[in-house]
Structure formats: structure tokens, C-alpha cells
């Protein structure tokens, strides 16, 4: 596996020393419910019983108050508001998108936490407050995976007010 040393007479200057950790991941009750719902095209959040904030994706407990969320879920819209964005010009191994592309922090309608995703839009159009909507895979390809949402795209709605998302910047 000593690459870059193809020529048998070249000194070996570099070796590959990959480390691979094989986990068997258990999603737990709350994330499993979230994933089963997304297989039906539904986006589930959960409401904190202390302050009423809606966390998305749903999880077992409030990271701020340490209380369990129980069984109550909140179904969220797949529309939201771009809170911040970044234009990516450097490739990553696991992201098969053509460069440059746009990543967004999107605040889904009804949620109080942001989701990081990608936006299919012209670079010159993206802006804070822009209204966007999820573009899903064809229904027959849905699985218990967040990859059911391919990306977001702009929708024809007036920009959200700065006050509506400023606390998430």
C-alpha cells in the first residue's frame, strides 16, 4: 500500500497508515422514531417541556435542561429560512457535489434549532433570510435515512425578517 512509490527504484518517502474504526451504531429510541418518520417523508422534532423550544431532529433529552422529552413529537414543515450560508470551493471526499456549492444553516418552520444542508441555487442569489424548501428523493427510494432529502432549493416567498432568525446566527 505504499503509494506514490510506483517506480521500484524510487526511495519510499511516504507510507499510508489508515486507521479504520468499525462501529455498530444504535440510534436509540428517539432517533429511531425520527428515522422511521423520515422514511414516511415526515420531519419530527421534539418540544422541551421546560421552555417549549422545538429541537430537530428529535432526540431523547434536552441538552440545555437535561429533561427527557417523552413521547410528544412535533411534525415540522420541510420549508425553512436560510440563517447563514457558506460557499464551498474545496472538495471533500464524501460529498459528491460539483464545486462550488452552497451549504446552509436552515431553520425549518416550527423548529428552534438549525439544520445544516446544501442549497441548490445560484451563488449570487443566496442570502440570509432566503426562503427554501427540501427537495426529496423519489418516494420509492425513501429509507430510514436523512439522505431522503437531497438538498434545499429556493422558493418564491418573501425573505424572512431578520428578527425571526437572528438568535440562530
Amino acid at each position, binding site marked *: *500500500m*505504499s503509494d506514490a*512509490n510506483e517506480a*521500484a527504484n524510487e*526511495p*519510499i*518517502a*511516504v*507510507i*499510508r*497508515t*489508515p*486507521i*479504520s*474504526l*468499525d*462501529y*455498530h*451504531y*444504535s*440510534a*436509540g*429510541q428517539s*432517533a*429511531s*422514531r425520527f*428515522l*422511521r418518520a423520515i422514511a414516511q417523508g415526515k420531519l419530527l422534532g421534539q418540544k422541551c417541556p421546560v421552555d417549549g423550544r422545538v429541537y430537530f431532529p428529535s432526540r431523547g433529552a434536552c441538552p440545555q435542561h437535561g429533561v*427527557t422529552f*417523552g*413521547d410528544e413529537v412535533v411534525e415540522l414543515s420541510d420549508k425553512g429560512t436560510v440563517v447563514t450560508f457558506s460557499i464551498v470551493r474545496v472538495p471533500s*471526499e464524501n460529498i459528491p457535489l460539483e464545486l462550488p456549492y452552497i451549504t446552509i444553516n436552515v431553520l425549518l418552520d416550527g423548529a428552534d434549532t438549525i439544520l445544516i444542508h446544501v442549497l441548490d441555487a445560484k451563488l449570487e442569489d443566496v442570502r440570509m433570510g432566503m426562503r427554501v424548501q427540501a427537495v426529496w428523493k423519489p418516494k420509492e427510494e425513501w429509507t*430510514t435515512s436523512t439522505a431522503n432529502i437531497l438538498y434545499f432549493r429556493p422558493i418564491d416567498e418573501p425573505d424572512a425578517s431578520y428578527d425571526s432568525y437572528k438568535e440562530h446566527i
Partner: protein
Amino acid sequence: MSPTLEKALTAPHKLEYTYKRSLGPVLSPFFTALRDRRILGVKRRDGRVMVPPKEYDPDTSESLDELVEVSDEGVVTSWSWVATPRRQQPLDRPFAYALVKLDGADTAFLHVVDAGDEGNMETGMRVKARWADETTGMITDFVFVPA
């Protein structure tokens, strides 16, 4: 509390760090020599030879660069038997990890002894390198076997 427990979803999750190491002026010749089925050490100012070579003297911190070839045979100074090898360990059958002091070296280094059976292992035993048919300049180019 959740009265409606469902079976939690599970999935394989592989985390990989695809490191490449730049070898530098001492380890590059060491690995290059392995490809030629030779083992190099580095000589300290007092004449002692360290295998594998290090770039700096562990006592004085002087930088070292005098590489010398040592034998690919030596003596087991300590060992531990691996009865049930795990995936990603060097051999898929029981083997020993041993500290081996090669002839011409003053330090022992940790490597595999393919001894077949724990009963064939003994501190002080002689071992020799068994080289791969095709060497690539990796430490896995050889294992030790009883000499």
C-alpha cells in the same frame, strides 16, 4: 418516560482516518531497504545501534543519520502469545508479538513471530526474517520465524 418502546434502529458505522505519513531522512531509507529485504538501524555517537532507526538520540537529543545494516536474524528478548488474533492484526492464525534483538543491533524491536504454536516460543530463542514474495517497503514485508 416512553411507554411505547420499539426496537432501536442500528447500522454499521465506519470511521476512517486516511493518514499518509511522510517518512523523513531516517525512516525513508529504513522502509526503502525493507523493499530490498534489508534491515537498517541507526548508529548513535557511542556506537550503539538502534533498530528501527530513530532520528534523534533518546539521551542526548542529537540528530542521527548514520544508517547501518543489521542482520535479519536475532534473539527473542520477550514475547507474548496472541491465541485468538483479531481482525486487522498481522496474521489470521495464532502468533507471538515479540521483542527481537537483531544481530548487530543494541535494541530490540516489536514484531510478529509466526511460530505456529505457543510451545515453540521461548525467551532467548533465535529467529530469522521470512520475507514476503513481493516486498513493497512496509513493515509487513516480513515476519520472524524460529531460526
